[in-house]
């Protein structure tokens, strides 16, 4: 089993490979030996190191150093079709997450900019609890500006934070476009409705799948792993938002 884990933490195996090797070890009597590495009544040791896995349209790599575990999701963002495939995959994954129930950790990307009050209404409709939301502004030199706004207890999008961000000497001459992505928590039963909402392009549920996969592979601090996913909106703007309007 030590070989199994050392391979695993070097991040060379997919879930399927893991399953095959586990079955082979079982068939060879490895787990029925006189001194099993893992007792039936004992949780397997939590592993640190690097781990990675690939799925149909995305992959992730993770690293656990004993004090924290972090993972980054990657997907193909080089075409409109690739982005739409990633959305389709997430819709399927959302069904899995919904079946498990509980609270899901999601990143939502809208098809276009929502005005702050539209965003607040959307969050209320879905009982969505944002941690942070992202506002697009156009700077005085015409460049895109990105403003991350932290939520504050019951206030999903504090207007005073927006006002303060737009009063900075760097931003005071910029033009506000609207909110385009948000990260937060929602009851898993809401996922299907959110994904089918015409205002929404992507409900990214991969953080939940990553944590579940890390847990399956006995990676340390899987439940609390920080999972980073880049929202696709920058590329959507590059391709033209009209390509994502429905």
């Amino acid at each position, binding site marked *: 089993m030590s070989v199994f884990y050392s391979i695993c933490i070097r991040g060379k195996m997919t879930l399927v490979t893991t399953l095959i090797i586990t079955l082979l070890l079982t068939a060879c009597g490895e787990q029925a030996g006189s001194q099993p590495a893992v007792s039936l009544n004992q949780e397997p040791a939590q592993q640190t190191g*690097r781990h990675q896995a690939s799925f149909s349209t995305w992959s992730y*790599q*993770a*690293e656990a*150093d004993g004090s*924290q575990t*972090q993972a*980054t999701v*990657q997907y193909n963002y080089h075409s409109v079709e690739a982005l739409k495939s990633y959305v389709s995959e997430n819709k399927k994954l959302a069904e899995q997450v919904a079946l498990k129930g509980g609270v899901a950790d999601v990143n939502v990307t809208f098809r276009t900019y929502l005005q702050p009050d539209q965003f607040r209404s959307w969050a209320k409709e879905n009982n969505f609890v944002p941690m942070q939301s992202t506002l697009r*502004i156009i*700077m005085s*030199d015409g*460049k*895109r*500006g*990105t*403003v*991350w*706004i*932290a939520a*504050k207890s019951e206030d999903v999008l*504090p207007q005073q*934070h*927006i006002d*303060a*961000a737009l009063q*900075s000497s*760097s*931003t005071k001459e910029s033009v506000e476009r609207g909110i385009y992505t948000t990260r937060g928590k929602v009851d898993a039963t809401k996922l299907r409705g959110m994904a089918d909402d015409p205002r929404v392009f992507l409900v990214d549920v991969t953080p939940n799948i990553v944590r579940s996969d890390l847990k399956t592979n006995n990676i340390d601090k899987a439940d609390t792993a*920080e999972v*980073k996913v*880049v929202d696709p909106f*920058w*590329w959507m703007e590059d391709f033209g938002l009209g390509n994502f309007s429905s």
Partner: protein
Amino acid sequence: MIYNYTDPNSVSPIIPGGKMIGSARTSSQIVASAKDILWEPTAVAWLKANTTSDNYVPTIVFHARKQGPEGCGNDANSNGSWISTYVVSNLPNPQFFKKAECSLRSENELRIYPYDVNQLQSNTRYIAEGVWESTDSVPYDGFIDISNYQMQRDTLNNYTAHKDSMNKFCYTRASGTATTTWCRN
């Protein structure tokens, strides 16, 4: 008071020009900005050539801390009690990442980096600005440092290829605004 550091391992030419500005906004809120971040053409070419293989991206890192018993000069005795309320950047497809630095108790470290270095343009003035709010009864006597690293994007972000410069602003209630420059301006 401003403390300036230049790391002995700094590698030219990726050090950007620019300036850092810190100011107290209210009795419990401070703003720290890296403004006019500007990479010259040789720096952008170097970054593009040295980024793709292992995801090392130029990263602007902020640390916010309260002053320790020995004042601003001693990081080790400092404590963190800040939350960032908003962050602004015009870097291309900027990513924003908060973490608790080392053993400090609150999310006092903030990193901003462009996801795709290929979209970085030379001779373009970028900004990265963060605002912190004190979460305890002591107002804002503290400091923020702003550093430029070339850092891993996709894993723990604990691995630094190059730490190029670091500047630290020290605030007291009477300090007002402090400005300093990076290695070039």
